[in-house]
């Protein structure tokens, strides 16, 4: 096996996993841990960015262990995967720096006020395992390996969500763990049934064989997969667990969950709907209706909240609806808009949760009841909140606006009554999002500050640079999405095109054509040895 650009493909999984082992072994040396995990995630991001460029020349495929697909497990980095990897790598790096600044990752606060009761040693390894799981899910070219990727990231997320084991986190964690376990079981049984129906779990090969499967069986498989991914992505009516479990975790953990974990589900839905089951208008219509319900129910939930973290969790659910809207239109332009929206939403939602972490530190609470006047006492913080909040709403020229314009244009172009309903629903949701975040803004930043916020001691008013820096960097990145929107949107369009044409992905995994390996044991051995 020669060295080349394809050698980069396993790195986003391997680097964080090795670093996780290393940081666990070095748990006594906080500083070394920090250096190791920062380096690993930075290297992951660089490798992903290189893949982003390399994927322009067609999907980069690695047969793990040198066994050719379908015997070996392929890792596939096409444009969509590479884009998701790059964004998630950068986000995870920023959040890691933030958490080191906050002290979740070890150091205690002088005052002892915001000290996280955390088993210090496990934060870094768990976080890195989470990164490896996310990368594995994005890269996997095999349904069972995708399942393993999900399990890796879920197991890590269980630990991160219940850090410290306080009563509130155990309660929230129980809901999250049980729901995740159920979705994993559904996914695993879907994998089993796909294997029974097609005799393979290699995504490209499944895509080749599904047209020969009885359409009703194929529909059942598709719905079962969508059900499993829909729970992860928090699509209504499978979304009730999310606002219940996310807000209690430490701010950086909530931020990375909100940014990435639901998007892994959305990514899997894109793969299911484009590569595996490209032509199923009935399912698309069902998804459109669910997208509308997700948007409206999510945002109405957000309007009722008076805790910023919960409010943002509900807007997160609501905006998943936009991505599903794009995917369910089943056109290249729709999928492209959905991919752009995913990139935008990962950045913006993570930023907002990080800012809320800063607000909590400065104001001592996330309840709108108890916050106030932060614009006067912490004007910089107000700007950090305002910019991503407006981007989330979709105020031009920020990136949320561009994603929504793409979705609405395509919805109007298709022009069925259902897509028009979605267009109206999207606009309504955007208005209600504006209402929700402006309410948060008015209460937390503009109203007369309660005395305790003005009179806080100097220690509390000075926000650690380690927390503000990464947040500001992410806010800047969110604004930069507008600046690079042209190339980025074009990239998303090409990613959607390669994902949807039905041949690029399959041809990349089986360069010798479909005759290479049929999944039966005798031929499989030959092709494996021949590689």
């Amino acid at each position, binding site marked *: 096996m020669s060295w080349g650009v394809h050698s980069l493909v396993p790195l986003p999984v391997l680097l964080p996993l090795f670093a996780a082992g290393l940081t666990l072994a070095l748990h006594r040396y906080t500083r070394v841990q920090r250096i190791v995990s920062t380096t690993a995630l930075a290297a992951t991001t660089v490798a992903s960015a290189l893949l982003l460029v390399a994927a322009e020349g067609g999907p980069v495929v690695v047969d793990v262990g040198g066994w050719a697909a379908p015997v070996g497990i392929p890792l596939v980095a096409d444009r969509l995967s590479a884009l998701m990897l790059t964004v998630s790598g950068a986000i995870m790096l920023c959040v890691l720096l933030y958490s080191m600044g906050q002290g979740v990752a070890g150091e205690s606060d002088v005052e002892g006020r915001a000290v996280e009761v955390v088993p210090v040693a496990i934060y870094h390894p768990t976080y890195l395992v989470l990164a490896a799981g996310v990368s594995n899910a994005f890269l996997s070219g095999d349904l*069972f390996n995708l*399942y*393993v990727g999900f*399990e890796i990231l879920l*197991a890590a997320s*269980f*630990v991160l969500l*219940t850090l410290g*084991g*306080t*009563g509130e986190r*155990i*309660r*929230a*964690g*129980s*809901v999250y*763990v*049980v729901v995740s*376990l*159920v979705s*994993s*079981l559904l996914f*695993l*049984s879907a*994998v*089993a*049934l796909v*294997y*029974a129906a097609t005799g393979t*779990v290699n995504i490209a090969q499944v895509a080749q064989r599904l047209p020969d499967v009885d359409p009703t069986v194929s529909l059942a498989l598709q719905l079962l997969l969508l059900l499993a991914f829909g729970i992860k992505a928090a699509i209504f009516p499978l979304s009730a667990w999310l606002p*219940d479990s996310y807000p209690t975790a430490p701010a950086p953990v909530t931020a990375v969950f909100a940014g990435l974990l639901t998007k892994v589900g959305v990514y899997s839905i894109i793969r299911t709907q484009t590569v595996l089951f490209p032509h199923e208008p009935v399912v698309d219509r069902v998804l459109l209706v669910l997208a509308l319900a997700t948007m409206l129910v999510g945002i109405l939930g957000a309007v*009722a*909240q*008076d*805790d910023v973290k*919960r409010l943002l969790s509900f807007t997160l659910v609501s905006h998943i609806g936009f991505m599903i809207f794009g995917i369910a239109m089943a056109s290249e332009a729709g999928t492209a808009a959905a991919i752009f929206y995913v990139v935008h939403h990962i950045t913006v939602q993570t930023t907002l949760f990080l800012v809320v972490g800063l607000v909590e530190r400065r104001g001592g609470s996330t309840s*709108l*009841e108890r916050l*106030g006047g932060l614009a006067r006492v912490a004007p910089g913080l107000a700007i950090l909140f305002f910019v991503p909040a407006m981007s989330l709403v979709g105020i031009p020229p920020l990136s949320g606006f561009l994603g929504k314009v793409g979705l609405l244009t395509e919805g109007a172009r298709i022009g069925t009554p259902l897509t028009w309903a979605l267009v109206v629903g999207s606009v309504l949701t955007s208005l209600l999002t504006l209402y929700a975040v402006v309410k948060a803004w008015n*209460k937390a930043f503009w*109203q*007369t500050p*309660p005395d305790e916020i003005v009179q806080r001691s100097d220690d509390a008013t000075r926000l650690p640079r380690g927390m503000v820096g990464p947040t500001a960097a992410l806010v800047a990145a969110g604004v930069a999405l507008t600046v690079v929107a042209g190339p980025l949107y074009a990239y998303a369009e090409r990613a959607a095109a390669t994902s949807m044409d039905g041949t690029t992905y399959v041809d990349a995994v089986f360069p010798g054509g479909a005759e290479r390996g049929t999944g*039966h*044991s*005798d*031929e499989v*051995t030959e092709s494996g040895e021949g590689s």
Partner: protein
Amino acid sequence: MVVLENTPSAVLVVAVGVLVAVGVYLLLERSLTRVLLGFILVGNGVNLTLLLAGGRAGSAPILGTAPDGEPMSDPLAQAMILTSIVIALALTAFVLAMAYRSWQLGGHDEVADDVEDRRIARLAAANAPSFTDLDAEESGQTLDEEAAEVQDETEDDRAGGGS
């Protein structure tokens, strides 16, 4: 090419059905320990489904050991089951730890309701706003008086600036 007999064995299919049905019943309980038992049962049901997906059993899937003409079992299904058993083991350990912690903290291992959610539902039932607006508190003045006060302030400012 050896094509495996693909008709599943009815006993296994019934076993999957029973395991999943009992498991789902337990998953719907509130106690974490029962939920965990439900998870284990459904997990075993799903593992059996994987086994069924691999077709009927044959001889051991090692090259060169099977007598000529006799079909081998599908090794891939077994590999997948092995992986999923290992994953289920790790998750079971975690859920047990969580149930124990829950019992340590609260004396029970029931999955409790979301307090904040219930509070908001109560407010909604009473048709009350979800928050109070500090700036909109009753000041005991009419709007005209408040406006006059504000105007006085600005005039003071102007006077102060001019002097």
